[in-house]
C-alpha cells in the first residue's frame, strides 16, 4: 500500500506478465474462435432450410462472441502456469503481494459479461421472432404428425386423407406440422432442417419450416420413448412441386384402392 504500489498500479500495463497475457490473448482468441466455429459447423453439415441456416449462423456468432472471453481466461491461465512454479513436498514461500481485489477489473469483467449476455439474448430473440411468425403462414401446407411406439405417421388432411410413413415435402413451400402422440412422449426432429417439437399424448403442438433443398433428409425421435427409441427414425424426401403432386396423386389412388 506504499507509494511504490500505487505507482505500479498507475502503469500496470507495463509489467511483463500483463504484456505476456495480452500477447497470448491476441493469439489465442482467433484460434479458439476459428477452431470452435469450424469444428462445430462442419459437424453439423449442410442446412436444408433457412431455420437451420440461422441456427448455424447463431452458433458461429456465439462462438466468436465467446472467443475473446475464453481467450482471456486461457491467456491468464497460461501466463500463470508459465510463471512462478514450485515442485516438492513443502509449500513455496508466500507470494510477494497481498492483492485481495481489484474493483476496476471486477467491474469491467461484470459489465462486459452483462453486455455479452444481452447480446446473446437479443440475437436469439430476433431469430425466435422470425421462427414464430412462420407458424402463422396462411399459404402453408398443413401436415399432421402422429408419433407412436416406434413409428411416425404423416397425414395430409388437405389432400384426400393421404397418409404415409415417409414424409414427402415440396421444395420452397412453407409447411406447418401439427404434432401429437398416441402413447408416450416422442420428439419430432427433422435433423437437417433444424426443427424439433415434442409429440405429447393428448395435445397438439406446432412447428413450421420451409425446406429449401431437394434431397433426402433424416427424421429421428429425440425423446426416449421406450424399447425401440433408437430405431424410431425415418426419411423426409424434399422434391419438386411436380414430383410432389404426382406423389400425392399415387398415394391418394393407393388409399382409394385400399
Amino acid at each position, binding site marked *: *500500500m*506504499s507509494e*511504490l*504500489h500505487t505507482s505500479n498500479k498507475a502503469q500496470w500495463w507495463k509489467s511483463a506478465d500483463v504484456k505476456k497475457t495480452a500477447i497470448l490473448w491476441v493469439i489465442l482468441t482467433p484460434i479458439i474462435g476459428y477452431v470452435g466455429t469450424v469444428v*462445430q459447423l462442419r*459437424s*453439423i*453439415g449442410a442446412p436444408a432450410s433457412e*431455420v*437451420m441456416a440461422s*441456427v448455424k449462423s*447463431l*452458433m458461429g456468432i*456465439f*462462438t466468436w462472441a*465467446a472467443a475473446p*472471453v475464453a481467450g482471456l*481466461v486461457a491467456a*491468464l491461465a497460461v501466463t*500463470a502456469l508459465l510463471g*512462478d*512454479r*514450485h515442485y516438492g513436498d513443502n*509449500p*513455496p514461500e*508466500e*507470494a*510477494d503481494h*497481498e*492483492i*485481495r*481485489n*481489484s474493483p476496476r*477489473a*471486477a467491474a469491467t*469483467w461484470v459489465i462486459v*459479461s452483462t453486455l455479452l449476455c444481452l447480446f*446473446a439474448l437479443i440475437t436469439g430473440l430476433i431469430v*425466435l421472432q422470425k*421462427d414464430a411468425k412462420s407458424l402463422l403462414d396462411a399459404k402453408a401446407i398443413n401436415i399432421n404428425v402422429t408419433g407412436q411406439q416406434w413409428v411416425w405417421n404423416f397425414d395430409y388432411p388437405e389432400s384426400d386423407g393421404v397418409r404415409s410413413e415417409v414424409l414427402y415435402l415440396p421444395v420452397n413451400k412453407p409447411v406447418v406440422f401439427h*404434432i401429437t402422440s398416441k*402413447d*408416450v*412422449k416422442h*420428439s419430432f426432429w427433422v435433423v*437437417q432442417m*433444424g426443427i*424439433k*417439437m415434442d409429440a*405429447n*399424448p*393428448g*395435445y397438439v403442438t406446432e412447428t413450421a419450416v420451409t425446406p429449401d433443398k431437394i434431397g433426402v433428409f433424416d427424421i*429421428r425421435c*429425440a*425423446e*426416449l*420413448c421406450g424399447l425401440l*427409441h*433408437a430405431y424410431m427414425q425415418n426419411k423426409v424426401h424434399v422434391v419438386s412441386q411436380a414430383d410432389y403432386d404426382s406423389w400425392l396423386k399415387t398415394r391418394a389412388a393407393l388409399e382409394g384402392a385400399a
Partner: protein
Amino acid sequence: MTTMMNRPASAPGDASGRKPLIERLNIVTALVVGTVSAIVIWQLALHFLPQDAETASFFNREDKISLMSLIAWFVGFMTGIGALIGPFRWAFGKDLNHDENMFLAGKDQGIKRYFRYTTDHKVVGIQYLVITIIILFVGGTLAMLIRTNLGHPQGGWIHPQAYNAIVGWHGIIMIVATIIMITGPFGNFIMPIMIGARDMAFPRLNALSFWLIVAAIPPVFISFFTGGITTGWSAYNPLASQAGLGMNGYIAFICIFAISTMVAGANITTTVVKMRAKGMTWNRTPIFIYGVVASVALALPAFPVFFLSQIMSAMDRAFATSFYNSAAGGSGWLYENLFWIMGHPEVYVILIPSVAALMEMAPVFTRRPLFSFNLAIMGIAGISGLSVLVWAHHMYISGWAPLLNAPFMLTTELISIPTGMLFLVLIGTLWRGRLWMTMPLMSIFALLWNFMIGGITGIYLSDVPADAFLHGSMYVTAHFHYTLMGAGLTGALASLVYWFPKMTGRMFDKTLSWVSFWLVQIGFNVAFIGMFLVGLAGQPRRVESYASIFNKGNLITTMGAYTIMAGMLVLLHGVISSWRNGVKAPMNPWQAKTLEWTVANPVPLENFETLPVITSDPYGYGKAQS
C-alpha cells in the same frame, strides 16, 4: 463436558449381562429387520390383496405390492439401524443419558462405529466418502457398459430393454453420487471443524441423513431385476407409468433420498448459521462454507418438489389416479415442470460446492490471498438465486408454453454473469501466485478448461432456436457431462486429495494422484468432445444403436471413456493403498490457514480442546514488498 467418562458404555447395562438395545443395533440388524419386514409385507399382500377386476382399465395390484414391500423395507431398515431409539426414548420421557450419547458418538469403538447409527460428524463424513466411492464405482461400471455397447455401431450386444435400464440406472445413481460427493464427505467431516464447532447442530439428524441413503440404495438395485428404470433418469410420464415394476424402485429411491437431502440441508444450514466460532463473522467465513451452504440450501426448495412428483407418480401407478395421464385429465407437462423445478437447481447443488472447494484450495496452492472474496459470494448467491427461475429451458420444445420461451431464455442467459464471477475469482487468484504444483492446483486449471467448454455450450443450448436443433441430442449429454463431471467431479477429486490427510491421517500418494489426474482429464476431453461432434451431426441421446455416420465419433468417445476408467481405477488404488499404508500426514501438510488444519491427526472426538477465536479471514497469505 469434555472427557468425563465414568465407565465404558459397553459395560453390561443390566443384571442379566445382556447389552442394552442401543448397543446391539448395527448394519446387520438393519439389513435383517429390513429384509424380513419386506418379505413379510410382500407375502401378506400377495395373500390378502384382492385381484384386479377383469374390467379394470389399469392393472396395478403388482405395483401396490411392490410399493408396500419397499416401504416395509425402508421402515424396517431404519428401525433396525436404531433411528427410532432417540425419538422414542425422548417421547416416553427417558431421554438418552450422557454415556449413551457418548456411545452414539462412537467413543472408543474402533472400526465398529462406522457400521452403526453413529452421530460423530467425522464418522458420518467417512461413511459418506466410502458410499460415494461405491456409488461412483457402480455408476462408472454402468457407463462403461453403455460406452462398450456404443463402441460398435448397430452391433449392440446389450438387449435394448437392458440398455435402457442401464442408461436410467447410470443416470440416477450418478446424479445422487455427485450430489453427495462434496457436501457428504467434506461437508460433514471438514465443515464443522472449519467453522470451529465441536459437531453438527443436530448430530442424530446427521446420522439419519447418511443411513437414509444406505436405505435408499437397495430399492434402486432391486429395480434392475424387476424391469429396470427404462425411462432415463428423468423418468418422464407417461413413459414411466408404462414401465415395469422397476419404476417403483426408482420412486422409493428418490423419495428416501429426498428426505435425506432435506434433513442434511436443514442440519448443515443450521450448523453454519448458529455454530461458527467466536469472531467468525460472515466476512471471515471460508468460501467453501458458502459453497456447502448454497448447495444444501438450494436442495431445500428443490427436493420436496422431487419427492412430491414421485409420490404423484406412485399414486398414478398404484391407485390409477391421473396426475400425469392426459387421457383422464392429467398432463405429462405437469411432471416435466415438477421434475425440472427440482432438476435445474439440482445441477448447481452439484456444481457450486465443487467450485467453492477449489476456491478454498486456490490461495493455499498459490500462496496468495483469495481474489475478490466478495465477488465469489456474489457469484454463488447469484447462481443460487437464478437457478430456481430457469427450469423451463428444459422444456423449450415440449410445446408446453411457447410464449414462456423468451423469458426463460433471459433468466438462463443471466446465469452466465454470476458464473463469470466465479471464473474471475479463480483466475484472479492464480494471477501472480506462487504455484505449488500439486494435483489440487492443476485441478483448478482443469476446471477452468472444462467449465469454460461446458459454460459456452450451455449458452448455445439456452438459445431457443439453437436448442430446437440441439435438444435431446448427444450434444446435451456432452454439455452436462462437461459441467457435472468436468467441473463437478474434478473439484471433488481435488477435495479428496486435499483433505485426505485430515480425514485418514495419511498423505495421498503423489504419483498416483498425478497419473490419475492426467488419465481422467485427457480421457474426459477425448470422450466428450467426440460426443459433442456426434451430437452436432444429429445423433439423439439414449439410443442403443445409431447410423453409420456416427461411427467414428462414438469410437472416439468409447476410447476416451476407457481412459477415464483407467484413471479412476488408479485413483481407487491410490485411495486404498494410501489409506492403508501411506505416509503419515503432519497436522498441516499444505500450510493452510483454515481451522481444520489446527487440530491433531486423528482429529479428537470433540475436535477442539478449547474453542478457537477468529480474528481474521483464512486468506492472509502473501506479504507486501517493503
